[in-house]
């Protein structure tokens, strides 16, 4: 019954960033640009943003000045493909079409670097997922995936990160699992990684199959998570255990 009360209490509460569940020292590491290792990728992204690439001989910076606020609004609807697109996907698309440059694979270092450079420009801004009704079906599928039990351990995202957030799995505090810090520097990875990588972690953790990076299932989950964490500040590059 104690748990039921806890659940009811959480349902009414505001979303809680994983930052609030970290030690004072990790919070300080995240907040300090001179100690946050994710800033190494940020700096690389800044350099890549200025670099001319591809047959078009254009740099990102030739078209884009400030991208403040952009990351807070992704994933968005992409009319060209009539599908949702996340920030990394948008950068891939821009690179292919505007720069006519060789594709950067998901989770590659340059794509993570460019993504975190753009995402950081929204640091401190509230996650504001677009209300575009065309996103609604995919977002609903994402919510269904979030609540779907899977894998040999037969657990859903929601069972841990919604119904049992704040409790301890072994010694690890279960966070609410919000998507406001990506790409993030995860100490476990000793590297920067995307939300898709983190989702993949959980899927394999419950001994389930994990779709390939870029798969529609991830986009759908990303859409739902953006809605679920609406209002939380963008923290990219967040630091997480």
């Amino acid at each position, binding site marked *: 019954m104690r748990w039921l009360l806890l659940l009811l209490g959480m349902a009414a509460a505001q979303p809680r960033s994983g930052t609030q569940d970290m030690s004072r020292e990790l919070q300080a590491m995240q907040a300090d640009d*001179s*100690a946050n*290792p994710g*800033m*190494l*990728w940020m*700096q*690389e992204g800044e350099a890549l943003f200025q670099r001319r690439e591809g047959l078009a001989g254009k740099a990102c910076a030739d078209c884009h000045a400030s991208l403040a606020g952009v990351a807070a609004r992704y994933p968005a609807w992409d009319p060209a493909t009539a599908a949702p697109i996340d920030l990394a996907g948008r950068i891939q698309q821009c690179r292919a079409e505007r720069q006519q440059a060789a594709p950067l694979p998901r989770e590659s270092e340059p794509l993570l670097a460019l993504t975190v450079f753009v995402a950081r420009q929204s640091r401190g801004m509230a996650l504001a997922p677009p209300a575009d009704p065309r996103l609604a079906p995919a977002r609903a599928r994402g919510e269904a995936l979030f609540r779907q039990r899977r894998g040999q351990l037969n657990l859903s995202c929601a069972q841990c990160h919604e119904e049992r957030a704040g409790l301890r799995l072994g010694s690890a505090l279960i966070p609410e699992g919000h998507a406001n810090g990506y790409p993030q520097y995860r100490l476990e990875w*000793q*590297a920067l990684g995307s939300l898709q990588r983190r989702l993949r972690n959980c899927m394999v953790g419950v001994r389930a199959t994990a779709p390939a990076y870029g798969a529609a299932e991830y986009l759908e989950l990303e859409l739902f998570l953006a809605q679920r964490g609406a209002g939380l500040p963008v923290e990219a590059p967040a630091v997480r255990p």
Partner: protein
Amino acid sequence: MARVLLNLPRSAAKGAVIEIRTLIMHPMESGFRPGMNGSILPRDIITRFRCSYNGEEVFRAELSPAIAANPFISFTTVATESGTLSFTWEGDNDFRQTETRDIAVT
């Protein structure tokens, strides 16, 4: 070239103690970790870090596999005169990288 982040003031008053914070991208592969096939991945770490101020060494550190990936090292030095601070990281597999920053001391 490994990515490096250096944080130090561009200018300082003569005699002031300035803080220098450094990050360098490096896996610091410990030499104790098994790889995918179960065999131990060979050690690949940064072993030495030095900072010189107008050619004179003011700080040096010997690193071990117990230093985290993407090493962070922070220390202080006295702003003595205008000039150049030079930072060098050296390690396994002939790793060697040097970065410089100018400082104006008034």
